[in-house]
């Protein structure tokens, strides 16, 4: 890169006072640059660039925050199952194609029922195909034991899913503080979901 070479040239000549890095076969003849008659501050590009970059990053942050704002306010009882639950329900949606987002306006209860059935069917179908596969994931087994928690099954699923390394905005670490994230689903779907999660994650991890 001629830019690199020339700048290194200048540095060596000015600051180090020995022309060490003069690869002087070819480089840009920048020539003398005069600094007279500057209207703006001489570092204006530097300042402008960094300010612009900072503004852009902050703008991006606000846009993302707006995008991830959830809907109407509800009551919440902060429980451990909340967090896991979000992950489990996230998984439940995996089997559906993206067009499911259009179904927003339908009765959510019915839809979630069909969702569960769909997922169960798909997972069962895949489990049948997968039945011959062996090879227990030893690591996840040991992690099952390692994991503390009131309801062991949920913690296992959570740990399995951390191996997915789903982007961290879907935070599956059970040691992170409660109340940080949203979403809670009540008891009955939890049992169903956790089964799905375990099966799908086993399949994925093998």
């Amino acid at each position: 890169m001629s830019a690199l070479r020339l700048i290194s040239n200048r540095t060596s000549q000015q600051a180090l006072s020995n022309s060490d890095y003069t690869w002087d076969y070819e480089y840009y003849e920048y020539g003398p640059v005069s600094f007279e008659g500057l209207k703006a501050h001489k570092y204006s590009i530097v300042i402008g660039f960094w300010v612009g970059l900072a503004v852009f990053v902050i703008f991006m942050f606000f846009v993302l925050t707006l995008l991830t704002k959830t809907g109407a306010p509800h009551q919440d009882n902060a429980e451990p199952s909340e967090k896991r639950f979000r992950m489990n329900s996230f998984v439940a949606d995996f089997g559906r194609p993206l067009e499911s987002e259009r179904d927003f306006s339908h009765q959510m209860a019915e839809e979630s029922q069909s969702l569960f059935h769909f997922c169960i069917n798909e997972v069962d179908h895949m489990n049948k195909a997968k039945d011959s596969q062996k090879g227990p994931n030893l690591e996840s087994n040991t992690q099952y034991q390692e994991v503390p928690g009131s309801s062991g099954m949920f913690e296992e699923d959570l740990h399995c899913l951390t191996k997915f390394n789903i982007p961290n905005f879907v935070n599956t670490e059970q040691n992170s503080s409660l109340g940080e994230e949203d979403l809670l689903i009540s008891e009955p779907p939890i049992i169903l979901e956790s089964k799905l999660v375990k099966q799908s994650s086993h399949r994925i991890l093998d």
Partner: protein
Amino acid sequence: ENISDFSLNITDCTQVVVPEEVFFTVAAAGILENLLILIAVVRNKNLHLPMYFFICSLAISDMLGSLYKTLENIFIILCKMGYLTRHGDFEKKLDDAMDSMFILSLLGSIFSLLTIAADRYITIFYALRYHNIMTLRRALVILAIIWTFCAGSSIAIALFSYEAATVIPFTILFPLMMFFILCLYVHMFLLARSHARKIASLPTSTVHHRTNMKGAITLTIFLGVFLCCWAPFVLHILLARFCPHNPYCACYMSIFHVNGTLIMCNAIINPMIFAFRSPELRSTFKKMFYCSR
């Protein structure tokens, strides 16, 4: 050497010099950290997954960037001590090779970030079929293609760095990739949001309403760090090509070494925001360090 000519005209915007000790420390830290990640992934069989291979690819490209700076400094020191001549053919080839290593590092970083984003995208949207879509073999093939392409382009760019035809595509590639990665992550966010809404409207659910700040913060950090570390250098290349005689441009180019240090800082920060987030990798590190005691 025309020292006096240069210094008369450029005293207004002198080169901002970063001490060599700082360079070496930052570069060494970057290399060590990324090497640790590579060792951890190789040693732990459970980490032989496509997602960790992509993280390794990012670690390799970060290592190359830091290695470039370290080698450059070593050569400067060798020149100072007189072991290397300054005008030789060998040094010229060496310089070309180092420049292409640096560009390889930049391209490798961009493409690794892209594959990590794509991998996460597939994980979210095609989760039940993820294992079939992203097999280990496919992941390795993808990485091989990417690195071959990056190596070829870096050699081409280093050889033809004066042409506008190489500078312009290079600088366009950068924001294009960033934008594409941003789109992938935004789509993932949108799914998370719609999912949250679905959960919220379940009749039997009680939803903890809160803005999902963590996701926005994470993504802003991912992209913000990459932008802040690489964009100054890309702008430098643009200015050096198109307005080297302009005093404003010259003042911007005088902070070149600071830009180089920023790139090495990126090599240190990237493992923290990608690799160390994985609990599996962290536990592997703990085992490595506690076992060695």
